[in-house]
């Protein structure tokens, strides 16, 4: 759900970010710049960690479309975060193929280890997690991905999840 009661601070897009937008828009015919909306929202999320309403308004302005055209897209697709998340969002596949090989136990383990429920952020701001649908890696399950690079971790076990979490903690310190 789109929530406008979050801290909605104004955002600025850096010239580097804008030049990435320009490159994307150059891929489409004249006047079809709206095609760049989904890739641009990914860039915004990679930059800020989520897409806020002011960021969406800026994107609308950049693409010369109405803000509602951005909102309806951002709310339709599952990958765009409409509220702040942990620095690392662990997205675990919860669909049939992965459940057959233990995805539900992995999610229980993550919930216990991080001490937060699905969708919540750990107090240190480092982690959140959620179940997502089939990630096209069913033969290598259980799997999880972490944005904004969408790195994959396959054949998960409790031990590999523990190691992943401690590695990420160490990485965040540096």
């Amino acid at each position: 759900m789109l929530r406008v009661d979050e801290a909605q601070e104004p955002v600025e897009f850096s010239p580097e970010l804008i030049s990435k937008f320009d490159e994307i828009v150059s891929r489409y015919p004249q006047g079809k710049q709206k095609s760049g909306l989904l890739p641009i929202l990914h860039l915004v999320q990679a930059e800020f960690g989520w897409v806020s309403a002011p960021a969406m308004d800026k994107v609308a302005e950049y693409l010369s479309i109405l803000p509602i055209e951005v909102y309806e897209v951002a709310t339709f697709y599952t990958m765009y975060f409409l509220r702040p998340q942990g620095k690392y969002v662990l997205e675990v596949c919860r669909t049939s193929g992965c459940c057959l090989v233990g995805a539900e136990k992995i999610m229980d383990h993550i919930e216990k280890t991080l001490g937060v429920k699905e969708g919540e952020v750990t107090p240190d701001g480092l982690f959140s997690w959620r179940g997502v649908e089939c990630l096209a890696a069913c033969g290598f399950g259980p799997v999880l991905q972490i944005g904004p690079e969408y790195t994959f971790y396959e054949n998960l076990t409790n031990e590999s999840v523990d190691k992943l979490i401690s590695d990420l903690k160490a990485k965040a310190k540096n």
Partner: protein
Amino acid sequence: MGRKLLLEHINVPGINTFDVYRSKGGYASVEKALKMTPEEIVEEVKKSGLRGRGGAGFPTGMKWSFLAKPEGVPRYLVCNGDESEPGTFKDRYLMTHIPHLLIEGMIVSSFALGANTSYIYLRGEMMPQVRILERAIAEAKAKGFLGKNILGTGYDLELYVQPGGGAYICGEETALLESLEGKRGNPRIKPPFPAIAGLYGCPTVVNNVESIAAVVPIINEGGDEYAKIGIGRSTGTKLISAGGNLKKPGVYEIELGLPVEEFIYSDEYCGGIANGKRLKAVVAGGSSVPILPANLILKTINNEARLMSYESLSDGGFVSGTMLGSGGFIAYDEDACIVRNTWNFARFYHHESCGQCSPCREGTGWMEKVLHRLEYGHGKMSDMDLLVDVSKKIEGNTICPLGDAAAWPVASAIRHFRDEFEWHVTNASEATSRNYGLAHYADPLKVVETSPL
């Protein structure tokens, strides 16, 4: 050993780079095709008998020949790399390991269709593959296989990779086009078909990643040679994504017509069921196709060996057959709970419904709720008929086939495993803690023993 046309070189170190790929005969089909006329290429693809590998199995050559060609209007080729059908993971595998095969196929196919700008649409979660493909495109461009005046023939082609935003429905071709235009992934009402009015209202062909890749061996070897592989109207090779309770899950390239039993149990393929368990059920072509119990996936109702082909898998229709679909093959062992699995699928479709049609939007939600209560021990005996009733009301009454795709798994699970659903009602407290114990569907056939690995 079956023939490998797509994955033959997948284990060659560095095959993801242009130079190694080229040294293995890569891009030869482009050199050959650019000397042919577009009509001749379409003719070869027609002769090959290639059927769309995205799920529907529509003949690719025929689809190409429907493309409208009005003067002065651009035409587009859009590759469907959305791959979100549960159980399917072949396209991601192919693009990750041998990206140039897709690029090569895109160049030949775009030339055949007269497209000068083509897009590869990937589900947004495939960001690593976006980078892999963009690198491959840059390499091919630097070598003169993309961009202006390809190989000095005067043919121009720009190829772009477009990430989606995470939505199964964007695999449906018209939803994909909406998404590529920067909108919500709401399927369009057909007609008009994309061949007449697709991307930006222009004539467009949408093809699956594997279909496009298959064009490469078809041009290299000729359509007639390709058609010799396989069985009947199921020509060529097919990538099968094998997952679930198998000893060796993974992506396999098979010659169509391979016996299902050999695919599951032979050491060349899946190596049998993991952990010494027995087979209970199979979803043969991605979550949308009917689930079959072990006896019916291994043999048809007429006691003929079931083959991995479009015709053999659908033998028996919806009563006792299923479909090849996208080739997402999920094996369930004797411990798998069919009710829980059916609930899992129903939740998936409810989550992924775009919400445009009320039978799909509401019906998938109903099915999810009823299956949830059955799984958690609050079900009623009448729930099974209720589920079948809801599934019938969705089927055929929606804009796009997602509605059918949501209805079939539920209807088929109840048809073949009704006693397991009933057991969840009569043994409600047990059902929450342990699986249906009888498992009498597990390998009722005599299974050939394979040597231990």
